[in-house]
């Protein structure tokens, strides 16, 4: 199959590549770029494990062709940590609030949360729940994911966050 030339920015790095027109973005990222943080959970756009940030939007990379990312600016989970290598406030929130278990949905969930907080810097719990409803988690029951995002919101906005006692 003839290949298309694409140029894009991934986690701040310029990337050039040849891809088949039918290559999905998630396969391009995982197999050609070795960025295996985006996961494939359903192949049909329902689970959100493959979520990446593309041109300031949350995108399900299993529903996007790599050629559609030509010229785009993409952030994957590998590009989320702080420049000094420490966990970003969202990553820290997920760890502190036990917002993950098997870790399979986590990269997509964190990237979705990242975009949600750009869209709405002070979301209510209900807004968080709706905001992440395109991302499925089988392990946590979401309570702690919501808390993880609230932890990050509090830290970013300098507002108090109190972990609810059992």
């Amino acid at each position, binding site marked *: 199959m003839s290949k298309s030339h694409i140029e894009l920015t991934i986690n701040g790095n310029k990337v050039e590549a040849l891809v088949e027109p039918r290559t999905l973005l998630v396969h391009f990222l995982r197999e050609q770029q070795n960025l295996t943080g985006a996961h494939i*959970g359903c192949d049909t756009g329902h689970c959100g494990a493959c979520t990446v940030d593309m041109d300031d939007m949350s995108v399900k990379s299993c529903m996007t062709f790599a050629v559609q990312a030509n010229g785009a600016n993409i952030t994957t989970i590998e590009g989320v940590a702080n420049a000094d290598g420490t966990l970003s406030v969202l990553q820290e929130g997920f760890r502190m609030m036990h917002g993950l278990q098997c870790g399979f949905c986590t990269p997509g969930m964190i990237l979705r949360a990242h975009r949600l907080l750009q869209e709405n810097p002070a979301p209510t719990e209900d807004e968080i729940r709706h905001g992440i409803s395109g991302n499925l988690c089988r392990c946590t029951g979401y309570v702690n994911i919501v808390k993880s995002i609230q932890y990050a919101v509090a830290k970013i906005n300098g507002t108090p966050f109190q972990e609810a006692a059992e």
Partner: protein
Amino acid sequence: MNDQTKIDADRAERTEKLQGMGCKRKRVEDVRFTQGKGSYVDDLKLPGMLFGDFVRSPHAHARIKSIDTSRAKALPGVIAVLTAADLKPLGLHYMPTLAGDVQAVLAEEKVLFQNQEVAFVIAKDRYIASDATELVDVEYEALPCIVDPFKSMLPDAPILREDIQDKMTGAHGPRKHPNHIFEWMIGDKEATDAVFANADVTIKEMLVDHRTHPSPLETCQSVASFDKVKGELTLWGTFQAPHVIRTVVSLISGLPEHKIHVIAPDIGGGFGNKVGAYAGYVCSVVGSIVLGVPVKWVEDRMENLSTTSFARDYHMTTELAATKDGKIQAMRVHVLADHGAFDACADPSKWPAGFMNICTGSYDIPTAHLAVDGVYTNKASGGVAYRCSFRVTEAVFAIERAVELLAQKLGMDAAELRIKNFIKAEQFPYQSALGWEYDSGDYHTAMKKAMDTIGYKELREEQAKKREAFTRGETRELMGIGISFFTEIVGAGPAKNCDILGIAMFDSAEIRIHPTGSVIARMGTKSQGQGHETTYAQIIATEIGIPADDIMIEEGNTDTAPYGLGTYGSRSTPVAGAATAVAARKIKAKAQMIAAHMLEVHEGDLEWDVDRFRVKGLPEKCKTMKEIAWAAYNSPPPNMEPGLEAVNYYEPPNMTYPFGAYFCVMDIDVDTGVAKTRRFYALDDCGTRINPMIIEGQVHGGLTEAFACAMGQEIRYDEQGNVMGASFMDFFLPTAVETPHWETDHTVTPSPHHPIGAKGVGESPHVGGVPCFSNAVNDAYAFLGAGHIQMPHDAWRLWKVGEKLNLHK
């Protein structure tokens, strides 16, 4: 500050530094998982690796007339196409199942369920492999199929398993029909029948625990890499039980076990789906052996939902007999178990119906009888324990629905009926009528705490008012209060009654203390999200006084980890957790000898103090574990082996019996059938608590899966055996929007036989949660004379209940 206060403060500080048992230690795993640096099977990329994909049957039951692979083989990039004809000379077209049956790896003469594996295409990449599956021409002759298990044993039913049709004795005794798998019975039938014949009150109901699927977010997958020169196979895969997989691969391939390296890397959830051995694993192995290069196989979601290991499908005729005042005298259950086309249940070998005989639940029921008939149908095989110990969700669903139905018939409050029949604290260890010895429990205390916290009395009052208002036409909302008081049976198990393929269900831990006092420990279990790397380290930290942060836990590599039976049935804490404590205590005993030598005192003159041994009465004369570790390698006592390590293979003396009291308050709109969970309160007693944060997380997750199963999740088939809804479009996985808020609570009744008193918790919320939701729904409609409403309780079905009750006027 006086001396004692100072000592206490110092000890508290040292204890806190350990991050041992009982603290909410943050997870070690999360540092890599939050950065996308987990290492899952599909992340693996090996030089020259090929990709396999299946050709699957569109029919539920059909004869294969011919398979023509020539068009597929001609496609550029396709390396090989395997069919049963290729596997048969190797004896690999069938593989043994954990239940004593055989299962087709690739269909030979017939297909027995839709999406059954027919051919395996191996190509240069996954796109080409997928293209080529469409170029394999298979000619089928459709046959009449059986979807309804009640039709399996009819005299004129089509014979499904022609490969074993003459074998009238199966792995579990005589077969009554070619489509019959086994009959399993336990209890005193005569005595039970006699009680029922003379009982004041009886109830009888067909309770269906419908077919569903564990559906972890990561599907099943494997990478096989065979080194032809060394004759060694390395197999990476989504294995909840990697050592068992190694033994199975050795048995079916003939490769010696020491030349098989099975590695389970990070696993994206399991929930029972990743216990068994699947055709994809076998085909990736065969592909790699034949071609001499690595072969990867990755299921897509449709394949996962429709082929690898469904759960449940138990049709349980459940009866209780009781006195007029509500004392339960006997229980009688008959189960028709739909196992699909092959008996591939993942149960301990001697237990074809798992631990279904825990179905007398939390109640002191003196007499009981249980019979289970397993049958073949034209559906996918499986019957795995979906987030529960073997068939325990089914058992708890049966008893917890049955007590509600009995309460209704007696006109008694459902909580009061339960309390009246609870096994009392002083009755433990308790011998159940169906053969178990419950280790410990305090049900009355747990129930009282739960009822007080939820405000049970007030809720019933509110419900009574709402029912009156509904009757008067003032509201269209029904209020249901669901109760579940479950007893689980986990931690399989004692060798006398638990084995898999003849291997006793022990588990293991190997702990090595390095000279500088840091630790590596390896277990026979395998985490799939439970946080083992965090919690096992906490056990070791408390036992030997080395900070958890200095302890690395490693699982999943069968070359380095001691043999273990894996993680499922909530067995990691009860079995491998016990092995960890016992191995740590061996180290501590040796450390004490070394410390005595160092301090020039007798061992008996020493006492343990958090992280050190000190001389009794002379607390300043002490040696820390770190100092002892160095001495173990540098200057051990004369006649003592250097080094400081231990291994333990722990065979549990008994199962553990976690329990809990769950309450659900639900409001249902009768006109739409939409059910809203207003409150869900879960009190769990899992014995000693290792990490409360992780326990709470496990409870949240288990409740969410229970919510899914009870309220909508289902693997359904139409009459032609077409699987309906094998994608996330149709298969209900709750999002953050539908998922209720969870309130958690606990009591602590340690297990008397477990070294640290822990019982296991991962599956309790699922087991207890399913009947709690169903009871809430049933309770909402009960006063309208609805009778038992079968799960799943999605809005459409609840709307139909309203139709049937003529509520939509």
